């Protein structure tokens, strides 16, 4: 009888969970995880935070130690790029000419950074993206107290990077093309809050910034804006979003539409192939539409669904998206998705101080919360959202009113 062999492409957060969950769910065939990077799956969120700041060693980033995979009989095939997927013969081809046969396949290929390849000067030394451990190792060769960094992109990665570099005593400028930072993901009040705090911490934020070119010869020396300004830079970090890594799926003829299209059981258009994590376009029953998420939560939860599916247990994916971002002394915790909101209720003062929560509503329905140094607000909202419950906006908006009461009185 043919031995079952589950192969997971991508040594990502989703892959680590999928492999562990397969064993937990009783998969007794072979399991292989094939990844391009030379180390076992690791936590990416600390890359722009504690790891960049030098507070964590790469060993501490590993989701599980190498010994865990050995003990669980999970084969890590690292430093290996999958170049082809032959669904008919159920075989993967590898960059070194080798091949791996599978009986069941999981795509956990994640996302890649969006590149600014047409920006003049993008090829200069000292210009970086921030996605992989290797990126940060290279960035760390350029950082140091008194040096100047320009961050292109005022999203979470850009702002976290700015905070980490500022903590190291660097001169930091953030360039955002839109009128406010975090514009795509938060309310204006939250953007204003982050702009204010970064300003207080000594970061210069320039919004509506049109980057014309990166200057320098050999090493980057500055960033030229369309309005004629030139910002000096010893290094430039570009953080302008990611795109799902769908090349393999596309090449193999799987349905792809802003991510690998999967059903509620994480199945692609080929029933022998599942997919999980940043690379998938999936249906979210709480918000009743298809979406693609870039988050640890989604990687973890969807990987569990995918593992169950491969073991023949169909359990639909039903999870509340949540996120976090640490900058300076700000612990931001986000529960739910705010897209489509028509009202924001603030609890606490976002215009001064460093603790408040923004609750997003659509009509009477609570959609999401951005909680800054407000763990109780986050925890209660996460529970309510997951249970399909709303909260009382008047009580939420009154910081002196009992918080639990706000979630009981609707």
């Amino acid at each position, binding site marked *: 009888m043919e031995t079952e062999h589950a192969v997971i492409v991508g040594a990502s957060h989703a892959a680590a969970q999928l492999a562990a969950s397969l064993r937990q769910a009783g998969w007794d065939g072979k399991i292989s995880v094939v990844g391009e990077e030379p180390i076992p799956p690791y936590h990416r969120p600390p890359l722009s935070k504690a790891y960049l700041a030098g507070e964590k060693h790469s060993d501490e980033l590993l989701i599980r130690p190498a010994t*865990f995979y050995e003990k669980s009989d999970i084969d890590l095939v690292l430093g290996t790029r999958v170049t082809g997927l032959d669904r008919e013969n159920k075989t993967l081809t590898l960059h070194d000419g080798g091949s791996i046969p599978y009986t069941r396949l999981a795509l956990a290929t994640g996302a890649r950074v969006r590149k600014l390849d047409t920006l003049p000067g993008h090829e200069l030394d000292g210009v970086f993206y921030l996605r992989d451990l290797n990126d940060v190792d290279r960035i760390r060769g350029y950082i140091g107290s008194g040096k100047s960094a320009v961050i292109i992109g005022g999203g979470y990665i850009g702002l976290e990077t700015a905070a980490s570099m500022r903590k190291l005593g660097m001169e930091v400028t953030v360039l955002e093309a839109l009128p406010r930072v975090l514009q795509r993901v938060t309310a204006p009040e939250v953007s204003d809050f982050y702009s204010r705090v970064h300003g207080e911490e000594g970061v210069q934020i320039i919004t509506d910034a049109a980057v014309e070119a990166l200057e320098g010869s050999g090493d980057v020396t500055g960033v030229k804006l369309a309005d004629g300004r030139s910002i000096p830079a010893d290094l430039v970090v570009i953080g302008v979003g990611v795109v799902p890594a769908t090349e393999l799926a596309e090449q193999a003829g799987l349905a792809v539409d802003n991510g690998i299209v999967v059903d509620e059981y994480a199945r692609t258009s080929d029933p022998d192939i599942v997919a999980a994590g940043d690379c998938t376009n999936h249906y979210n029953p709480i918000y009743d539409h298809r979406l693609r998420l870039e988050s640890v939560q989604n990687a973890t939860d969807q990987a569990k669904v995918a593992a169950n599916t491969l073991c023949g247990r169909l359990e639909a994916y039903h999870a509340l998206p949540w996120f976090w971002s640490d900058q300076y002394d700000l612990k931001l915790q986000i529960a739910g998705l705010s897209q489509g909101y028509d009202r924001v209720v603030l609890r606490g003062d976002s215009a001064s101080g460093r603790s408040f929560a923004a609750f997003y509503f659509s009509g009477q329905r609570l959609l999401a919360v951005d909680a800054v140094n407000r763990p*109780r607000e986050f925890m209660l909202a996460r529970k309510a959202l997951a249970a399909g419950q709303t909260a009382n906006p008047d009580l939420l908006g009154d910081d002196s009113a009992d918080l639990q009461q706000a979630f009981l009185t609707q």
Partner: protein
Amino acid sequence: MPLVKFITHDETEHEVHVTAGTTVMHAALDNGVPGILADCGGACSCATCHCYVDENWVEKVGSADEVEAQMLDFVMEPQPNSRLSCQIEVSDELDGLVVRLPASQF
């Protein structure tokens, strides 16, 4: 190396030896002990590494800081001995530590 004993919700016991300085969360994950999800990887952001410190160890382990305490207020089935295991570092003084894991994290 200090020993940590995990007791899962179904009373299964897992004893693991870990290097001092490892968090209780990592002690569980690294050794495949089920019952700790640790979605955020130890950033004290998700409250999915909730554990109950055995009564005999509560004093030695110490209490949660403010952020952790606020998260613990609203985990599933909070108890006075609730802690987030990512915030407990195993030391030689905690050799033999016993923690229980809630059913909600399986």
